[in-house]
C-alpha cells in the first residue's frame, strides 16, 4: 500500500488546511489592500499635453489659484483656465519657446488644449467647490500640496470615507478665510486648530453634513 500512498500523504489534510488559511488570508489582504481608491486612484499622474508646472507658477511666481481657476469660489466646478489666460503673460514670457507651441496655437484657433482631468468623481456624486472653499476648506485638504508639484498627481483617495471623515468633524479642517489659498499654511497647534475650528463652526453656522442626499441626489 505504501507505494500507492507515500508517507507524506498522511499530512495532506494539514497541507490543505495551511494552504486554505494562507489563501483566504492573502486574498482578504489583497482585496483589503488593492480594492480601494487608496490604491486605484492615488498616484494617478497622467502625461499632460503641455508641461505646465504648478511649482513654477503657483509657488515660484506666487500666482493665486484664482487667477487661473477663477470659478472655484463661484460654482460647483473649478475650471481649468483657457489658453488666453496663459497668453496674458506668455505673449512676452517665453514667447517663442517650443514647450508653449500648443498654447499659442490653441489661443489662436480657439480649440481648447486637451488637458487630462486627474480628479474625477463618479457621476452619481454631486460635489461642490464653492461651498468648501468659502467655508474655509483649503484646496490642500483634497488635492495635496499642488503648489509644489511639477505635474498634478492624485494624492487623496476621494472615496466616500474620505469625504465623510471630514464631514463628521469639519472643525479639524476649517481655516481662517484668508488662508484657504495659501497651501503652505499650518495651524499653530492641533489644539488651537480645534478651538478655532469649533468657533468658526458656530460663527459661520457650518453643519456636519452626513445625510446621503448631500452628495447623492
Amino acid at each position: 500500500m505504501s507505494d500507492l500512498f507515500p508517507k507524506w500523504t498522511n499530512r495532506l489534510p494539514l497541507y490543505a488546511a495551511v494552504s486554505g488559511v494562507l489563501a483566504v488570508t492573502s486574498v482578504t489582504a489583497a482585496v483589503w489592500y488593492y480594492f480601494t481608491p487608496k490604491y486605484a486612484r492615488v498616484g494617478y499622474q497622467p502625461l499632460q499635453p503641455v508641461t505646465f508646472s504648478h511649482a513654477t507658477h503657483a509657488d515660484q511666481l506666487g500666482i493665486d489659484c484664482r487667477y487661473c481657476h477663477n470659478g472655484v469660489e463661484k460654482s460647483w466646478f473649478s475650471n481649468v483656465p483657457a489658453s488666453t489666460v496663459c497668453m496674458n503673460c506668455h505673449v512676452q514670457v517665453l514667447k517663442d519657446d517650443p514647450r508653449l507651441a500648443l498654447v499659442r496655437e490653441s489661443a489662436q484657433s480657439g480649440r481648447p488644449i486637451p488637458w487630462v482631468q486627474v480628479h474625477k468623481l463618479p457621476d452619481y456624486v454631486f460635489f461642490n467647490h464653492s461651498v468648501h472653499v468659502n467655508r474655509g476648506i483649503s484646496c490642500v485638504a483634497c488635492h495635496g500640496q499642488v503648489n509644489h508639484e511639477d505635474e498634478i498627481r492624485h494624492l487623496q483617495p476621494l472615496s466616500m470615507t474620505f469625504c465623510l471623515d471630514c464631514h463628521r468633524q469639519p472643525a479639524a479642517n476649517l481655516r481662517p478665510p484668508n488662508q484657504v489659498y495659501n497651501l503652505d499654511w499650518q495651524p499653530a497647534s492641533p489644539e488651537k486648530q480645534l478651538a478655532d475650528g469649533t468657533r468658526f463652526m458656530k460663527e459661520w453656522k457650518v453643519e456636519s453634513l452626513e445625510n446621503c442626499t448631500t452628495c447623492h441626489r
Partner: protein
Amino acid sequence: MRYIFAVFALLVVLVVSVAGFRGQMSRRPPIELFPDMVRQPRVRPESYAEFFTNGFGSRLPVAGTIARDAAYQDLPLNTGRVPGTTNFVELSPVPMTAELLARGRDRFQISCLPCHGALADGKGITTKYGMTVIANLHDARIVQMGDGEIFNTITYGKNLMQGYGANIAIRDRWAIIAYVRALQLSQLGARDDVPPAQRAALR
C-alpha cells in the same frame, strides 16, 4: 510544507510586482472596480461632448440672445462710458465704501499683482522673467486718467496687456479701480494728510 511556502511566497512576489503598492505613480487612468453608474451619459463642463458638432461640452450663447444676468445696457456701470457717447466717465458709478475697498484689495492681489506688483508700481514678479513694459500705475498720466478708461483697460486690455473682462465680474472691476485709487493716493499723500493722532506711527 516548504513547497507550499515557496509557492506562496512566489505568488505574493508576483502579485506585488505586477500590482505594486498604494500611491505609486501611474500614468494609466484609475481602474473603476464596479463601473455600474460611474460614467453616465451627461455633459461635464469643459469636456468633449459627442452630441454637438464642434464637440464643445460648454456651450456659448446662441447668436442674438442675451443671458438673463448679462450686462447689456448702455450704462456707465457696464461700459465705463457716458451713455450714448464714446467718452469715458470720470468717476466710478459705484459708491465708495470700506467693503468695496477691501474687495478691491482682494481682487487686485489675485489678478493684477503678478504683473503690476503689490504697490501697483509695475514691479511685479513677472518683470524678472522677461515682461519688460508693465505700466507703473503711479504715472501722472494714469493718476489723471478717468475711472472709465481704466475700466476699459481692465475689460478689453490695452497694447500689451490682455483684457480681463471674461475673468473679473463688473463690480469687482470697479472695486479694483477703487483700490488702485487708494494706492495712488498713498503714494501722493503728504505727512499732513495723516490724522495728527496717527502721525507718530509714521517713520
